[in-house]
């Protein structure tokens, strides 16, 4: 049986996927998770989850169907506009 292990590095930090391991039951999985992801004090806490419990969501659920680029902010660059404005005003960039 495959188990997915998530680690939390510090108290309050988000859990992140650490890796997976094989173990016959939850007890073994927890012991091995400790061995692989907690032995050196590198984790504050671990989540051990049977792989079957993880539901994967893919296209088309997570893909965009219509073009709605205008909703995104990553296309607007202020850098060029600022440069242009500074040129007009005759002031140099501060850094």
């Amino acid at each position, binding site marked *: 049986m495959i188990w997915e292990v998530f680690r939390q590095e510090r108290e309050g930090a988000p859990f992140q996927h650490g890796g997976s*391991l*094989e*173990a*016959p039951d939850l*007890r*073994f999985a927890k*012991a*091995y998770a*400790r*061995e*692989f992801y907690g*032995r050196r004090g590198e984790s504050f806490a671990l989540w051990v989850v049977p792989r079957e419990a993880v539901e994967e969501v893919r296209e088309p659920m997570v893909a965009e169907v219509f073009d709605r680029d205008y909703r995104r902010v990553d296309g607007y660059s202020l850098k060029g506009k600022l440069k242009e404005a500074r040129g007009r005003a005759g002031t140099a960039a501060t850094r």
Partner: protein
Amino acid sequence: MDAQELLRLADDEFILGWRDSEWTGIAPFLEEDVAFSSIAQTEIGHARAWYQLAAVELETDADALAFDRDPDEYACAPLVELRLIDDWAASIARRWLYERADGIRIQALLNSVDRDVAGLAEKIDREEVYHRIHADMWAERLRDHDLFSRAVEDLWPYALGVVSPEQRPLLCHAIGLEEVGAIERGNHTPDLRPLWEEMTMVRRSLPGATW
């Protein structure tokens, strides 16, 4: 605490750590290979700490105690000497019996009037918690298998030899078996010498070398 008593603890942990490390690379599956090897290494770490305490008293160092004595001078219990490398059920049975016996011994040492001993016992006990979880989960999983119950039965007189006679009723209670004649420390099994030959091979190849 008397140096000979410290050596009994150190030698048990050292020889068992060595025996368990023989499973590295050939345990039944990879996750267990890593876990078993790591436990073996921790036991050798505990041995080192006990040797260091004994070394102060004997005015030597931990390496000399671990590697420069003759096989007859080792004070380990016969249980840890046995070569069980082709028998996983017996190796797990030994781990389980040993952890239970060692747990009883460590518990007693926590109250030692010797503060170094009590302090070290407390540190070791924190790591042994994981060893006990590991041994117990395996023992429960294999409990109904003939190979395992037969191994426990075979090793039982050896296990009793790990603890002192006054601690044996506690071990009987922990394992759920009746007390039988223990295989005591003092006489070594034929398995010790070949182990010693291998274990001290490099050290003996260049006596007195610093590494």
